[in-house]
């Protein structure tokens, strides 16, 4: 029925919705390629797909915008509602809803540069997470013996560091983890280097470094990945990125920021020199202290020794010694007289002894004379004088019994004036 009515308009060209939307799509996408649009972000959302959807608006109009995941990941900063941005992309129509939208390829904030904004954003975010807090800062080892350096092996930074260490003649061992320090993938490499050194047993401290350059050149050290790696490091990390004036996110997270690579080398090698002085100083102080201690004890001893008690004792001792000397002298003096006396006594005794002996001998002589006279009286010779004879037998024995002599035996007869022999008849 409807078809009947429409016959009135034979010239009408009827299009389907799909056709019209597709026509518009072709038109729009051809005409609005490679466009730059400035506006304010609102209603910014990133669902789990990772694509971001938002509205770009100004005071009078608005347009839907989408930033697919791949593109969004290239953005240095995080888009937020209210942000004034310039976007680059193209218009596209999404047929299912018949809406056109802006497909964003690139976006940069109006005002401060995108990098600066990204820097500020990451800095405030990590700060609020507490990554920069002093309590997390590890102290550097007093005496590092091996240092891990994450840097380019061909860069100025490593040469500066080695030059300083050579000049200071330090004995540090260096292990270099070579990385890109700018451009795509550099942040990941730097982070990997930090992780790697943490898996080793022999590294005492890590230096993350590169020479000077523009904000873009230094960008790897402003990336979250590097910041997290530094924060997660169990080893202390020194950051030394660019020149004195350059501050990077790495610097804020690091346990110590060295203003330049050379300064980092000074810091790690300087400690050894300081320590040598400190140990030497302590050594000297202990020697002085013990000397002082000994001197003090000696002084105390001297004081004690000269105390009243000792003086008294000593004077008493001296008195006794003197007394002893005196007595000794007196003793010595008495000796000659003692000897004299003794000798005198001896002489007397000697004399009296002589007399006694003399007397004794005289007595004995007298007794002897008497005795010999008496003896004379008993002598057999005296008997013979009186006319007796003594008869002796064979064996010169005195014969007292005539029966003891056999007939014919010779006998001896002794008379006063001699002896003669006879035979028994």
């Amino acid at each position, binding site marked *: 029925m409807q078809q009947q009515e429409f016959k009135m308009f034979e010239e009408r060209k009827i299009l389907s919705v799909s056709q019209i939307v597709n026509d518009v799509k072709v038109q729009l996408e051809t005409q609005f390629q490679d466009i730059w649009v400035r506006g304010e972000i609102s209603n910014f959302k990133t669902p789990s797909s990772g694509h971001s959807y938002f509205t770009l608006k100004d005071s009078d109009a608005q347009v839907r915008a989408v930033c697919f995941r791949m593109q969004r990941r290239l953005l240095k900063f995080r888009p937020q509602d209210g942000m004034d941005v310039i976007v680059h992309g193209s218009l596209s129509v999404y047929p299912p809803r018949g809406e056109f939208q802006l497909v964003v390829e690139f976006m940069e904030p109006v005002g401060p540069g995108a990098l600066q904004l990204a820097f500020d954003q990451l800095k405030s975010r990590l700060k609020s997470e507490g990554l920069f807090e002093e309590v997390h800062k590890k102290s550097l*080892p*007093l*005496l590092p*013996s091996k240092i891990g350096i994450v840097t380019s*092996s*061909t*860069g100025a930074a*490593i*040469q500066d560091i*080695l*030059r300083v*260490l050579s000049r200071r003649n*330090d*004995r*540090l*061992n*260096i*292990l*270099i*983890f*070579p990385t890109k320090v700018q451009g795509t993938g550099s942040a990941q490499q730097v982070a990997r280097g930090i992780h*790697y050194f943490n898996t080793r047993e022999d590294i005492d401290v890590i230096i993350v470094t590169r020479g000077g350059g523009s904000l873009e050149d230094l960008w790897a050290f402003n990336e979250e990945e590097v910041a997290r790696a530094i924060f997660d490091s169990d080893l202390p990390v020194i950051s030394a990125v660019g020149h004195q004036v350059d501050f990077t996110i790495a610097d804020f997270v690091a346990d110590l920021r060295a203003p330049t690579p050379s300064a980092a080398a000074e810091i790690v090698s300087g400690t*050894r020199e300081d*320590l*040598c002085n*400190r*140990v*030497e100083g*302590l*050594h000297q*102080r*202990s020697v002085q*202290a*013990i000397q*002082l*201690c*000994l001197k*003090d*004890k000696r002084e105390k001893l001297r004081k004690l020794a000269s105390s009243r008690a000792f003086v008294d004792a000593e004077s008493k001792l001296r008195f006794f010694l003197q007394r002893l000397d005196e007595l000794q002298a007196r003793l010595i003096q008495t000796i000659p007289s003692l000897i004299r006396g003794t000798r005198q006594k001896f002489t007397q005794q000697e004399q009296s002894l002589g007399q006694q002996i003399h007397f004794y001998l005289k007595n004995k002589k007298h007794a002897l004379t008497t005795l010999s006279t008496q003896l004379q009286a008993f002598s057999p010779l005296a008997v013979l004088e009186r006319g007796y004879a003594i008869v002796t037998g064979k064996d010169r024995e005195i014969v007292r019994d005539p029966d003891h002599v056999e007939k014919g035996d010779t006998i001896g007869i002794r008379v006063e004036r001699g002896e003669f022999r006879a035979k028994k008849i």
Partner: protein
Amino acid sequence: MEYKDFENALARLESIVGELEEGELALEKALKLFEEGIKISRFCSTKLDEAERKVEILLKDKKGELTEKAFQPEGEPSA
């Protein structure tokens, strides 16, 4: 007494020197501490002297594992 840790040794040395400098110690104790102090200071000096500088760079070998090679300070990659 073995101090494998330089930090601890140094801290001990400092406390010994502090105690000695107080000067209130009995002679025997003072001498004992002094002896220990001298030993530690010798240990520390040895530690400070012992290392020798070696500069190496990590390079990937054929198996893709990192190995250490002597580093040429001129920045030319070592063979």
